[in-house]
């Protein structure tokens, strides 16, 4: 359950002078014994899009249900001439299951304009909770603010590759930074989480002997995806090919844009009526899995997951990441030359 934060009014909370953030935060908690401050990670969210602070405040409100953190939101407006740095503080409180206490996560929001955009790393580093890992959610394309002094201090990097304008270019920047950091940070792509329910459903299908007997016969796949999720579909296809040990030729992989959800259908087929389908029906609460091999058929249902960004981020934070595998899958996608 979510409870009201200790400050109210502006959705970003109470505006405060940057030099007074620590004392303002202390004042936020003073005398309120029903609130417990909790923090397991430093969670920084950076965006250069207009209105991002309000949107990301809602994101943090949701993420803190599962991940107590010190949230640091930064909105940069590099194109503005007048240098300005503004800050707000607030807290997101959730009523804990026992004892009736509210467990709260602090949020500090910054708006950086003009030349102050270069103050990004300082703004982040100056407000980290000590000893806690730094999780950094970089939204959109990597800009000049993505620089070594910053990314070498990151422990986990959250991205959403579906928002990239040019995945190949962005991926190269990311890979370069990762290597330069000594493979220090783990990459957590939200798009990877979007395909998780489909990956889980496919794994469930291949738990059956019927599907596994068909594995060597399957040789083509078709993925139906929503607008803007072509790269997600390609990443999924790459994962399937990697896991099954296939080398997919262009005519063996088809991506169809249809519908509004990120992924709505996966069909893996082979000769002789051999077919495995994972389908997200409109309005359904679960994925439906159909395995058909020769005359035999099995159907299953599997968890559907969610499209909500906050839930996806929250889930992504709960799971580990395999960055070398992630890059390997992308290499295959970019190698497809599409």
């Amino acid at each position, binding site marked *: 359950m979510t409870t009201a934060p200790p400050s109210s009014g502006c959705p970003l909370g109470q505006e405060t002078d940057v030099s007074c953030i620590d004392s303002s935060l202390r004042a936020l908690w003073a005398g309120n014994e029903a609130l*417990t401050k*909790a923090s*397991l990670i430093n969670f920084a969210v950076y965006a250069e899009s207009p209105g991002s602070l309000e949107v990301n405040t809602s994101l943090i409100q949701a993420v803190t*249900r*599962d*991940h*107590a953190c010190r949230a640091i939101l930064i909105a940069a407006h590099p194109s503005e001439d007048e240098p300005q740095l503004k800050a707000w503080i607030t807290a997101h409180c959730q009523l*804990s*299951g*026992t*004892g009736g206490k509210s*467990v709260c996560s602090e949020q500090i929001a910054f708006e950086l304009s003009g030349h102050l955009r270069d103050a990004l790393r300082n703004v982040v580093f100056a407000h980290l909770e000590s000893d806690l890992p730094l999780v950094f959610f970089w939204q959109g394309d990597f800009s000049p603010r993505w620089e070594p002094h910053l990314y070498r201090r990151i422990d986990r990097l959250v991205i959403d590759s579906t928002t990239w304008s040019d995945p190949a270019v962005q991926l190269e920047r990311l890979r370069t930074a990762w290597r330069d950091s000594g493979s220090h940070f783990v990459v957590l792509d939200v798009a990877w989480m979007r395909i998780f329910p489909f*990956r*889980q*459903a*496919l*794994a*469930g*299908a*291949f*738990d*059956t*002997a*019927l599907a*596994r*007997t068909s*594995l060597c016969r399957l040789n083509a796949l078709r993925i139906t995806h929503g607008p803007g999720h072509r790269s997600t579909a390609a990443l999924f296809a790459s994962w*399937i090919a990697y*896991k*099954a*040990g296939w080398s997919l030729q262009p005519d063996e992989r088809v991506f169809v844009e249809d519908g509004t959800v990120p992924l709505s259908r996966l069909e893996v087929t082979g000769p002789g009526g051999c077919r495995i389908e994972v389908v997200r029906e409109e309005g*359904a*609460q*679960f994925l439906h899995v159909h395995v058909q091999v020769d005359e035999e058929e099995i159907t*299953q*249902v*599997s*968890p559907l997951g969610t499209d909500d960004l906050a839930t996806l981020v*929250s889930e992504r934070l*709960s799971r580990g990441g*395999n960055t070398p595998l992630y890059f390997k899958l992308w290499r295959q996608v970019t190698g497809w030359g599409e």
Partner: protein
Amino acid sequence: MSTDVTADNPFRDEFLTRLSPEPCTLVIFGATGDLTHKLLIPALYNLALDGELPPTLKVVAFARREKTSDEIRAEFAGSNLKQSRQGHSSEFWAGFQERIIYHQSEFGDAAGYASLGRLLAELDAARGGAGNRLFYLASAPDNFEEILSHLKEAGLNEGCHGGWARIIVEKPIGKDLASAERLNNMVAAVFAEKNTYRIDHYLGKETAQNIIVTRFGNSIFEPLWNRNYIDHVQITCAENFGMTGGRGAYYDKAGALRDMVQNHLLQLLSLIAMEPPTDLSADSVRDEKVKALRALRKFTTVDEVAQNVVRGQYVAGSVNGRSAVGYRDEDRVNPDSQTECYVAVRAFIDTWRWQGVPFYIRVGKQLPKKATEISVHFRRAPHVLFQTLPARGRSNVLVFRIQPDEGVSLRMLGKVPGLAMRMEPVKMDFRYATSFGKASPFAYERLLLDAMAGDATLFARRDEVENAWHFIDPIEQAWHQAGQPPAMTTYPAGSWGPAEADELMERDGRSWRRI
């Protein structure tokens, strides 16, 4: 023919962070009982909802009453609606319930087992794989013997086509050492020890598993984990209710010592006291737990029992604003009952590590709170600097909260701000609910999955159970067979137990931790 195993599924490997459950048929004996309705079916449903259950798993509900599969499915749906951790989806249930098949038979009817065998063979054939069978004894213990003998007679105690047959046995495992040995022999005559899973749901709780992680995953605790630094250990299991739901009939035959101490609390004690295992395999962990249980000092005389154990019954009182009757006035309890519903034990473990360190165990009904926890009380600092300050709360205490509000806290001294040198205990607190957010799977979910995967780490081995009875039996004998047994004490419902239990601690210059 290829089999339904997840291990050679190329799409599955990265989802596996532990042994994977193998496709099998789960046969529940006593399927119409409370345990199945309230715990087993919701556990299976939630596992399926999380995508953790093998897709081809079937559940055969074996019970005596005339019923159809549709009827038992409807009944299970009703109980799942109330009990499921993640709520109940009619759409998902519709698919899930197809796994459940009702098999009507008396427990003692050989024909019922023959037809069960045919049903299992059909299910194996439909699954197209090895005949893996997991039997769950969820019936009353009185039925175990005939179930086991009929399973053997029908040849169901072995898997088919290279598969396995395992059995899960619910507590109580006996009511004393002799009956536990008898039951264990009975099980051993039908199932090998490696295929026998004695369930103790306390071991499935996150915080119980976290004891091993805290002790052996952190470098700061283990050097202090011995008689040089630890003053004593307290293990408390308090319940703020009495004989609700007709429980008196069972409880009055068992008592707190057999119902809780012999299994749950001695299991917790063994996790606290064990030496580091060489690895995390089931037998390595259980070998070390057994050594700790074997080293528990047995009471050899009635006097020793009287000196070290307090038993009690609650009398009328008030709990959480409601009046409570005394134990002997409870429904289905003998008005002259000599069964304890409170027990406090002072135990010692005769090993190099624990020589002279008392382990105080207490468990009771109708206490002020519901709480299970282990507190490790460290020795006080030498006090060279602070010897003139009050003694209260001066020692460090590490607390494992098993339930509710699962977590770990460490009490330490801090200086009170001000000009005077004044100290107060402060608490560093880790709570599962606020640190990890996500709800933990229920203990039964974890344990069912482990049994399907063949991981017995969180199940009690035969020698663990029997060594626990070795410790418990002399106490029971002193209470019930001695000419002049130690007195049965009383305490008002809603209090923290009999005064004699407080005196047990006070004699050692200690007191029970305030919970």
